[in-house]
């Protein structure tokens, strides 16, 4: 229950945080690491806004505690964005296809779909929709997001 000092490896950098055991990874990333790209919405594993990569796998960071993270590699949406201020191919495709409006769900989609695209060569539309099912969007109706993923999977975005 008492606070403890924990070392996280986030986007390749070691960060030291002071957290209670019950502090979720999303809260530690946002409040202590200053990485506010990862969003906290439902906080019970349904919406996907908190998605991060944990040892390369897309997971819900609201269902992980910061104290579970030592020894693992965390990548947030900030770590998927080129450091020169540009956009990744998926981010560019989302911009092109209006795959975001308010943007609140978008980091979760970027992380989930980046992982999906890395593991799937030529997804069908059915597979793309399936890959989106773990992230909720209230604004877009998902069409623009699917079009963006389609474009990236076909190598149409550099």
């Amino acid at each position, binding site marked *: 229950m008492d606070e403890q000092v924990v070392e996280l490896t986030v986007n390749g950098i070691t960060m030291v945080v002071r957290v209670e055991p019950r502090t979720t990874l999303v809260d530690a990333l946002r409040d202590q690491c200053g990485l506010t790209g990862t969003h906290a919405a439902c906080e019970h594993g349904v919406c996907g806004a908190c998605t991060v990569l944990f040892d390369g796998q897309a997971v*819900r960071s609201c269902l992980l505690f910061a104290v579970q993270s030592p020894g693992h590699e965390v990548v947030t949406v900030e770590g998927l964005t080129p450091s020169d201020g540009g956009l990744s191919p998926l981010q560019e495709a989302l911009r092109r296809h209006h795959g975001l409006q308010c943007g609140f769900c978008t980091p979760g989609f970027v992380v989930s779909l980046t992982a999906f695209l890395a593991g799937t060569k030529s997804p069908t539309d059915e597979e793309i929709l399936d890959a989106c099912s773990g992230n909720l969007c209230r604004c877009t109706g998902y069409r623009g997001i699917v079009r963006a993923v389609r474009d990236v999977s076909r190598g149409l975005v550099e």
Partner: protein
Amino acid sequence: MKPAPFDLVRPETAEDALDRLHDLGDDARVLAGGQSLVPMLALRLVRFSTLVDISDIAELQGIDVRDGGWIRIGAGTRQSAVEQSPIVNSGVPLLARATPLIGHFQIRNRGTIGGALAHADPAGESPAVALTLDAVMEVRSKTSEWLVPADLFLKGTWTTCLEPDQLLLGVRFPVWGQRSGFAVKEVARRRGDFALVGAMCAVQLNDGNKIARSCITLFGVGATPIRCRAAEKELIGLPFSQVEGLGQLAAAEAEPRDDIHATGSYRRRVAATLVERGIREALDEALYG
């Protein structure tokens, strides 16, 4: 939407975990993938003073083939690993087909098969597969170990035979072999939602193309999944071409109740259809491969 305070310990071996559980008593809870437990903690449906985190214990993970036609899966094995395993895909087709229906890929990247079995959700796919195939659970405490068949392991809603000081170490699934077929049929409003109602069918034909073995399970129809034993019995000895009307018989064995997601009568009607479709699909596979 934050959990109540707790301590979290991270034992490095199963033996350490069992020592901890033995010392901590029923105020402690095992944390595996956390995909079912942590939402409940966040919503404060449950509260424990200590979580025993076993999610990184390597010896609890792994899938291997055992003598006598069994495939053994470590309880800490991620659902995504189960889904992608060539051993599971060829040896336990029912499990390979049911696992992708669990939640979403992000859930399966953390959730474990042991956690799903120990959590025993009435609409969960993992408990339903275990019951259909009469899987055997490996249970251990600090001082003893047991092998428990699925129908004795699953006791009620979110209730198994596990005591607070016991750990599920692994689960053994039997390999059915030649001339067998399997099907999973479930209805959910959205991809990845809990099933409103589901059926699992497994059949095996003998050389004369008559049904030699059949297992039918309904889930989402009560506190635990149920085997439709009367319907299973009806199938034995039937030529594959004479299978008809088993859906009603199977569904009659369930007593689903109304809840906010669906009525009991809806569940029963849909269960009958899902069993019909499932048996047909499983038989097709048994016949034609």
